[in-house]
């Protein structure tokens, strides 16, 4: 029986270790810093090498879109702003003044090359209140 017990303990330990390994490796390789525009600027130049996610309000009038789907716009934290370039699926919610989240890299030319564009949206349960939202993101 005690040998059987040891087998169980080994098996359970193996599961725990595998889980720890998967979680650790997963976090290490996929983690993304979530920054505000201000924090992004503070992290120059080390930020150029990092994959980051930035949130901010889309500056009204800054959206430029061509027929091939290349998109340029600015996001701001109310104080500073950055230029964003993106090509890909544009969420329906995306427009002037919404809260946008971009993921990608900030290049030394001071342009944010976004791979992912998200906009705060649908199951929005209550009217958006930009003043509050800043704290939460």
């Amino acid at each position, binding site marked *: *029986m005690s040998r*059987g*017990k040891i*087998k*169980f303990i080994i*098996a*359970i330990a193996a*599961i*725990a270790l*595998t*889980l720890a390994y*998967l*979680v650790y*490796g*997963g*976090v290490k*390789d*996929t*983690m*993304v*810093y*979530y*920054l505000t525009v201000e924090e992004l600027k503070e992290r120059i130049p080390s930020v150029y090498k990092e994959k980051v*996610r930035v*949130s901010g309000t889309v500056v009204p009038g800054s959206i430029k*879109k061509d*027929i*091939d*789907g290349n998109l340029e716009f600015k996001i701001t934290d109310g104080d500073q702003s950055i230029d964003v370039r993106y090509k890909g*699926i*544009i*969420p*329906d*919610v995306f*427009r002037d003044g*919404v*809260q946008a*989240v971009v*993921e990608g890299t900030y290049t030394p030319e001071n342009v944010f090359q976004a791979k992912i564009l*998200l*906009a*705060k*949206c*649908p*199951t*929005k*349960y*209550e*009217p*958006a*209140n930009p003043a*509050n*939202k800043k*704290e*939460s*993101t």
Partner: protein
Amino acid sequence: MVETGSICLFLSFVISVYTLFASLVGGKTRKREFTNSAENGALAVFILLTIASGSLIHALLTRDFSLKYVSSNISRDLPTLYSITAFWAGQAGSLLLWAWILSIYTALVVLLNRRKSRELMPYVLASLAAISSFFIYLVAFVESPFEKLPFAPDDGRGLNPLLQNPYMAIHPLTLYFGYVGVTVPFAFAMGALLSGRLGDEWIRNSRKWTILAWTFLGIGLLLGARWAYLELGWGGYWAWDPVENAAFMPWLTATAFLHSVMIQEKKGMLKKWNMALIIITFFLALFGTFITRSGIISSVHSFAQSNIGPFFLSFIGFILIFSFGMFTLRLDQLKSENRYDSILSRESAFLFNNLIFLAAAFSVFLGTIFPIVSEAIKGEKILVGPPYFNRVNVPMGLILILLMGIGPLISWRKASQENLMKNFLYPSILGILTAVVLFLVGIREAVALISFGLCAFVAATIFIEFYRGTKVRAKRGENYLLALYHLISRNRRRYGGYIVHVGVILIVIGITASSAFVTQKEATLKKGESISVNHYTLRFDELNQYTTEMKHVTAAKLSVFNSERSLGVIVPEKNVYKYEGNRDIDNETEVALRSTFKDDLYVILTNFDGNGTASFRVLINPMVSWIWAGGIVLALGAIVIMWPSARERREEAVVRYSVEISEEGTAKV
């Protein structure tokens, strides 16, 4: 009507609190009058909340914009169906829905157990009433859907076009029935701990109600995936968003419980484990409601910033402390009656199944709260994205599929070589063969090969089970169809479980194929030009613009060909809603979808200009339909399991009869 709603909410709170105390007194003193009165209280709460919900629906249908809730969620041009579904489009309405569904469940528990479990039931009812009281308090006093505006606007803000989809009518409702349903097994667990009756009764009831809640949660998740697939227009159906994870975690732990409970019923083992699983599942359901409602974790679904956060946190804290406290007090009564003999046994297959389900739930939990944890520890907000969840969960998912084939067939206690050969030889050969053939055909993705191989293995084990069972019956002279019918109907739990497993296999096949082999292409086309993707050719015929009652539509007409053979026309759209109100968005991309069991042709109109040029994104998603088909099979299997069998009905009749006799007996004394 509005006053009626407010009054009903207030009354239901008072009665719910009364129910709590009356049932506690009833349980303590064993006096039937108190318990009976508490049961009537629970029914009254159900009736009052039904009236309150009715009056909210009435206000939505009559467009009573003097209500804040009505004016911020609908507008005059909204169709009737979506005016009703706006019930759960906002915070206050969703909370009312929670409370209402809980009152439905509570009423059902009361009605189904009227003459049973006299010592357990008062405490079960007390637990349900305590949780009800909390939610009713929130809707009645903190976030009321019946809050009035100082003056009524002419029109409301309107409903987000993305929520104007038939799936939004049914998906949140199903999910809520799942979330709230988890409360019932928790209440039985608490009832067992409080009354000290930790025998079979509570575990049997918990299992039944968990299957129901689990089915709702699973179907709700799939409906949500389908909604995202059709409506969000990015070609996928699952993004590991916090809101999705919130519903996925209790589903995982509930699945673990549904398996480990069999070990408790058959072998009297895992009693502490099961108790802990139920508590954790309920915690995760509350936690899920909390993160979707409080906005503590940012998500692409933007959340309400509301004042219910602190209430929820205190309530969750209280629930955890109370339930684990009671658990510790009763620990010595939850001793195992058996022990593990061999690692090659059904007991240990189930144990590992449970450990992995729990590990998966934990990893999802960690990923979901990672931003909060990292901010607390390092002062920096760090996210882990979909790659994290996939990397951690895919291997665990594969092991679970393997266990799904092994668990039901391996012998109890210790598997002999004979048992292993008899049950697993052919399925293993088939599984390996499948992987080899797919490799030779040219598939090189390791995960996909393993996944398909395992699916074939499990499918074969299930097929053999049905085949053997049917053959035995058929030998006794039944025809095969009748034999199959009797096989299932006489062992509903076992064969219903197998049907659920078949559904899961279909879903896994669909997920594997559609995540490993997507083809995507973008093109800007002039009228008459074509684009080819895989075996499909699409010709852009024309761009039509027209106006309906609600929206301005721009529709691109494309003819689809499969190597010269015409497959008809598909029409992706971009819509701009006329009435802007104050809703967040007024434009909506309507995806065109041509779905077969082989693949989905998924076309998005991404852009267009005045001279008739339009750009498209075309995706070929293989075998997505298998996921939805799997969901239907899964639901059917769950219905087979839950269908009351003739024997159970007889047993219940006997119990009822004997209780009546004993009650008459005591009455005479």
